[in-house]
């Protein structure tokens, strides 16, 4: 900008305006560049997984073909062998049972705990709430050794019901923490109104708090589901026979023999294993994002 332009207020205004527009445009371009880079970075592995799952073993073995495309046509051969000739369906069933049980146990415990800790102020409630979160910070790679003793003591070693007992130690603290935050964000007049309307604490929880905190409950459910669906360390340590195994460990141990990787089936298995979380995310995302609390009080 010239000295003349600076000394002229009108020119200066134009200058400021255009530089604001320019900097906004740059911010937008930079944002898009990084978003595209991140999208590519995160989408390459799933893409590779999908492409590989639909290839034949022969095509994979041929080094001359481009690994990023399906050259010999799509085949469902990998899925057929995986479902018919391996224990994949058993793993899938075990995982589903464990996950559904863990999600139910987690949500019951954490909703009740969060309601008590977040809304019913009592002596030591905030210390307890922090304590619960701290337990989440201890990694499962440390916990599995003492946990092994407990599971063994209960006679649940190599039994997937042991996982139903163990996974909530990962999910409950975090879900409780999320729910405490949600419950605390609900205006306190809402429970006072319910108290005056004649509701007891449980009626208040089930008829007011759970419906209003639904986005939070769904967020916590998704978290509990993902954690127990994808858990690896505990089943690796506690389960060893094929009929008790879950998807994560089962797929890897049965499809990698020594240094032989059955890539096609591994990818087909990974694709099938990734499907339920994907479907759940897709269905619940709208709820997850929608703020149901709007309109409760003056916005």
């Amino acid at each position, binding site marked *: 900008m010239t000295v003349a332009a600076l000394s002229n207020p009108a020119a200066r205004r134009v200058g400021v305006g255009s530089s604001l527009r320019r900097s906004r445009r740059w911010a937008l371009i930079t944002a898009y560049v990084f978003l595209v880079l991140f999208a590519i970075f995160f989408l390459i592995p799933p893409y590779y997984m999908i492409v590989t799952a639909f290839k034949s073993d022969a095509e994979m073995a041929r080094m001359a073909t481009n690994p990023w495309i399906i050259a010999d046509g799509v085949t469902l051969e990998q899925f057929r062998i995986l479902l018919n000739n391996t224990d994949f369906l058993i793993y899938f069933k075990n995982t589903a049972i464990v996950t559904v049980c863990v999600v139910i146990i987690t949500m019951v415990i954490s909703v009740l705990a969060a309601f008590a800790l977040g809304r019913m102020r009592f002596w030591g409630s905030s210390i307890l709430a922090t304590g619960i979160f701290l337990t989440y910070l201890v990694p499962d790679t440390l916990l599995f050794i003492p946990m092994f003793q407990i599971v063994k003591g209960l006679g649940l070693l190599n039994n997937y019901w042991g996982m139903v007992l163990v996974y909530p130690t990962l999910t409950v603290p975090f879900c409780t923490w999320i729910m405490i935050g949600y419950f605390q964000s609900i205006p306190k*007049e809402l429970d*006072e109104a319910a108290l*005056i309307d*004649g509701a007891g604490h449980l009626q208040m929880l089930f008829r007011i708090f759970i*419906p209003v905190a639904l986005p939070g409950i769904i967020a916590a459910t998704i978290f509990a589901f993902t954690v127990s669906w994808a858990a690896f360390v505990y089943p690796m340590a506690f389960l060893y026979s094929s009929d008790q195994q879950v998807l994560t460990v089962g797929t890897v141990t049965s499809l990698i023999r020594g240094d032989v990787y059955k890539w096609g089936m591994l990818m087909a298995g990974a694709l099938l294993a990734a499907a339920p979380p994907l479907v759940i995310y897709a269905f619940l995302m709208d709820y997850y994002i929608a703020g149901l609390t709007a*309109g409760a*009080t*003056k916005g």
Partner: protein
Amino acid sequence: MAEVALRQVVKKFGEVEAVRSIDLDIPNNEFVVLVGPSGCGKSTTLRMIAGLEEVTSGEICIGGEVVNDLPPRDRDIAMVFQNYALYPHMTAFENMSFGLRLRKFSKAEIRQRVEHAARILDITELLDRRPKALSGGQRQRVAMGRAIVRNPKVFLFDEPLSNLDAKLRVQMRTEIKRVHQKVKTTTVYVTHDQVEAMTLADRVVVMNNGRIEQIGSPQELYHHPRTRFVAGFIGSPAMNFLPCQLEQNAAGMRVRISEMIAFPVPPTNAARYRSAVDKQLILGLRPEHITEPRHNGRDDGCQFAATLDVVEPLGMETMVFFTVNDTEVCGRVEPSSAVEAGATMRLQAGIEHMHLIDPASDVVL
């Protein structure tokens, strides 16, 4: 329908005393407004009546029964909150009927009561809507509906109009008064807005610092405030307070506010003020009692000249501000007689409306 009584009620939050031993009797069907600045204990008092706060000491009676240890649901009260506190996942109908459903009323009875309340509040069309789809005023009506359907012994309102814009507030104020005339129920209403208090109340309870300053009808509080606080709190703009000295001479009693200005004390008041002669006092005079000269311009010793600092035309009247001995004074004059800021204007004090306050005790003499 019930009377409410508070007997030496105290509320402490730790070491802080929010309510300091208040006594209050509210007869059946009366509309009582608790008014005062923030932190004066009015909301805490209301919440203790509702059962949302425990009473530290003292007794609260509703309908002759001590309710200190009763939970809110057993007190048969209904409350309207400042931010409406509607259940966001329920329609207006469900919001209004929630209390009745919990109390296991029959479906027919619930429908009949909700529809009746909706007719009173003119919200029949809105019963299927969720709070999100309602405007502020409509939400407040639904919140009132939720209180009305219960047909409780006592209505409690906690600053219900504070979140509404000025126009809607006036409209809802009238609405609340209309509803109270239709649904005769003992009502305790908390507000910090003295205009709301004056317009709605049968009796106003002015609170300050956890204590009741004065209880009385709106007119009584306006014309006969007992303390400096009440005198300053009731009325808008607030009463002017001017340091003064009471003089007695052969001609009578005079109240002197500056070397130049002294007003004759009306003979009706003189006897009351006799003991305060020669003392430093505070003269309280409302802006509406400082006007342009009236009585056909006849000077009865209450006229004086003032150089105006600020002039605020409001349409039907003009506010004038000037200074006497470093104290800002506000007057209310006819727009046609107002002069420009900086000019000198002849004004008249309506001294028959004067109040004299003892600065040591802040009590009106």
